[in-house]
């Protein structure tokens, strides 16, 4: 490539030189952002997983496998990892299919070097990751080693250098170097000798497939090993750990619930006389699947962390109590704003205010409004309409039990209801503004046509506005649900000592665990479970709701 030397004339006057310069400039432009994103965006995910496999309080401690997950979720922790490794294999299979598709267009005899080079690069990547994560715990100890001593660069660098040479890291480093060398050699041979149009794609796909399959195999092996270990330990203590049966039953249960959904969908589309059969099977499948999950899940979760499970339950109640309400009111306001009225800009501006003002400040106002005092604003209003004053943010008892409902219908603590009211108040304006934009995108001719056909206000809303607004509804509900999983500030401010953990969502509980007890490993494992849940929910919502969305 550099036959003409690196002189400026060559670089500026040939096509290759210009492309090279453009590439180098682009990487220079991307450099700072890329490094920071790698450090604070990509690396943290792997790092969090790594931390979650250890006992880790401020500084790395011993490797404990999936024990943190077992502590958080009981046996379900192991089951979750089985599913995860299966998911990994599914991703591998998808990648392999793409690889085969590309390969079908090319000749196998000409392309096998590219495949081999890709596989070698994939292995080199894995070896690099392995080395890196062997290095991390050693490096992470440096701040403790140099603590108290004279912090000089020389000392830090000395320890830094020593960590590369420490046992384990050194061997992994050598393996990585060999791997990288092999990758470079094989890649350059392919690119010089066996180059074709498909080689680039094949190398990338093959590398990814190799890395994915090895990663999934590692996950599966980790899960199997940890499960066996846990079962053996239980046996020694004279107990039985029914992970396997639980895995089978719960997976079967969830599979049947999914099958029920598919059958239901088929049934809706089927002919009238067949629909009945589909519905019966759907119902049966749902009942059996539901029974299996209901029967097995509590036992699988029994050894889990009750506070975390309560955190998930609080999150679910919180989402269920805020998202539908705020979307409905937001849509109503947007619909009204869309009518031919004056002061539209004024209304829009005002409705947005609760959303843009700092959550800390407005939460404090709500803290005062919903104070437990008999003359606090909320209680004043209750007294006005003849209801007993409530203890609001100090109330542990649930809304339902205050109304005299039995326990299982009780629902959220009154203190959580205050937080829900606060959230709804904050997000209505935001939802309304975005709905308003969505309404503006619906072409006016449709309304006119409907009116000519004699449709009334409600029917126009039901059959034109709502379907055409479905992308906006979908977007807002996704944002709102993810928002409830991430909610922190309002709970931090509005919770009181009196209600204890009754208002802690999962993420608030994780934060507490991190800040008060410094259990980094355990907190990481819980954060990871939360991450998996959010991911699953997003996928689910995409499939279920995404299908109903009408994109016009």
């Amino acid at each position, binding site marked *: 490539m550099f036959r003409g030397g690196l002189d400026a004339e060559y670089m500026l006057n040939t096509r290759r030189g210009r*492309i090279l310069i453009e590439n180098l400039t682009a990487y220079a432009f991307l450099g700072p952002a890329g490094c920071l994103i790698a450090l604070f965006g990509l690396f943290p995910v792997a790092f969090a997983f790594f931390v979650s496999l250890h006992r880790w309080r401020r500084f790395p401690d011993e490797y404990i496998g999936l024990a943190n997950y077992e502590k958080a979720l009981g046996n379900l922790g192991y089951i979750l990892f089985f599913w995860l490794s299966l998911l990994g294999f599914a991703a591998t299979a998808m990648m392999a299919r793409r690889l085969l598709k590309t390969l079908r267009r090319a000749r196998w005899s000409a392309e096998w070097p590219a495949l081999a080079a890709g596989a070698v690069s994939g292995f080199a990547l894995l070896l690099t990751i392995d080395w890196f994560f062997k290095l991390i715990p050693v490096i992470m100890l440096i701040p403790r080693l140099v603590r108290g001593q004279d912090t000089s660069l020389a000392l830090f660098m000395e320890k830094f250098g020593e960590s590369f040479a420490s046992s384990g890291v050194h061997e992994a480093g050598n393996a990585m170097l060999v791997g990288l060398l092999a990758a470079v050699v094989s890649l350059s041979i392919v690119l010089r000798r066996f180059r074709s149009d498909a080689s680039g794609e094949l190398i990338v796909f093959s590398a990814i497939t190799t890395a994915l399959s090895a990663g999934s195999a590692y996950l599966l092996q980790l899960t199997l090993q940890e499960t066996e270990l846990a079962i053996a330990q239980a046996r020694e203590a004279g107990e039985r750990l029914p992970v396997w049966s639980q895995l089978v039953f719960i997976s079967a249960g969830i599979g049947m619930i999914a099958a029920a959904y598919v059958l239901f969908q088929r049934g809706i589309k089927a002919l009238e006389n067949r629909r009945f059969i589909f519905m019966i099977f759907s119902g049966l499948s749902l009942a059996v699947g539901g029974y299996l999950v209901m029967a097995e899940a509590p036992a699988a979760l029994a050894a889990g962390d009750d506070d975390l499970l309560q955190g998930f339950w609080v999150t679910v109640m919180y989402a269920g109590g805020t998202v539908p309400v705020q979307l409905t009111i937001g849509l109503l306001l947007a619909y009204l704003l869309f009518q031919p009225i004056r002061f539209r800009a004024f209304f829009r501006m005002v409705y947005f205010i609760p959303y*843009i003002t700092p959550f800390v400040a407005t939460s404090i106002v709500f803290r005062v409004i919903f104070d437990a005092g008999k003359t*606090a604003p909320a209680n004043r209003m209750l007294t006005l309409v003849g209801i007993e004053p409530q203890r609001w943010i100090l109330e542990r008892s649930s809304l339902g039990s205050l109304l005299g409902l039995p326990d299982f219908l009780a629902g959220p603590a009154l203190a959580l209801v205050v937080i829900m009211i606060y959230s709804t108040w904050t997000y209505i304006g935001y939802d309304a503004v975005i709905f308003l934009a969505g309404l503006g995108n619906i072409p006016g001719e449709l309304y006119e046509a409907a009116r000519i056909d004699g449709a009334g206000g409600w029917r126009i809303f039901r059959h034109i506005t709502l379907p055409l607004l479905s992308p906006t509804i979908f977007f807002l509900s996704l944002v709102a649900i993810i928002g409830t999983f991430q909610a922190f500030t309002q709970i931090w401010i509005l919770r009181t000592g009196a209600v204890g953990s009754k208002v802690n969502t999962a993420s608030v509980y994780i934060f507490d665990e991190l800040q008060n007890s410094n259990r980094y490993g355990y907190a990481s494992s819980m954060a990871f479970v939360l991450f998996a849940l959010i991911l699953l929910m997003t996928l689910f919502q995409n499939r279920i709701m995404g299908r109903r969305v009408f994109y016009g």
Partner: protein
Amino acid sequence: MASAEISRLGVQKAPAEGPPKPLDWRRFGIYVVLFAGVLIAVGPFLWMISASFMTLSEVNLTRLLPEKLLWENYATALRRANFLDIELVSDPVTGVLQSFGVSGYIWNSVRITLITVVGSLLVCIPAAYAFARMRFVGRNFLFALFLSTMMIPGIVMLIPHLLTVIWLGRLSESLFGAAGAWFNNWPALTIPFFASVFNIFLLRQFFLQIPDDLWEAARIDGAGHPRFLVSVVLPLSKAPIMTIVTLGFIGSWNALMWPLLVTISDDWRPIAVGLSNFVTADTPGDLNLQMAASVITVIPILALYFVAQKQFTEGIAQTGIKS
């Protein structure tokens, strides 16, 4: 999907139905509901302002208006909550100003905001430009990789960020001495937020719309990419930059979880943490002072909102998130 909605948000006109007709009952009902909405939206603010001027017993009895405006509440809140402290030292003989010191949570938040926004622009503008207007190997892959980091919930990142920041801080301390610390200092509060994927995305979308003719003309005149970026693209990009500045401002002003973890003293503690501590720990009973402190916190954001309303609405609609 979101971006299609947004482009209309700021410029939305009334639906073409002609001028409003004289008042009828239906429309009257609409106004009633809308004004009720206004009352609910701003009611808590109005009472907050009113309560911030009251005596404690007036707040406890939920008076609507204070008997007398107690401006002292603000002075007390500013002092007790350590919000803002300006120290002017002048020479006792000549009266010439000798030194001048500002401290307090508001000042901290302002400093944090400035560093974050400037750093973020410096990092994100070239990256967005490269994604929008340059061709290089792996462009789409890198862009997808960047975007995928937006899906990761903050709580997962919290611990790795903390560990990374502590480690880098120790390294930088051994390089620069105590001033180089990251923990409980500005780097921990700002540097992790420099490379905002959202900012890169926003800028890239804008840079894509700049006509190619401009680039051709600049290239014929002998300008390369850096020159084109600085003298043509940036002057055209005031709108997205303003959006980033305003959103960065609210983001820093709101930040609570991360600063709670990485600040242990008042030197760099931002206003949200300060206010939260003031309310939950320092003054459990002084509701009037709490209200005054909240008003002080809200005012800068509201002022910015009224000035740069368009940037707020568009920016937030594009992110779907506030901070």
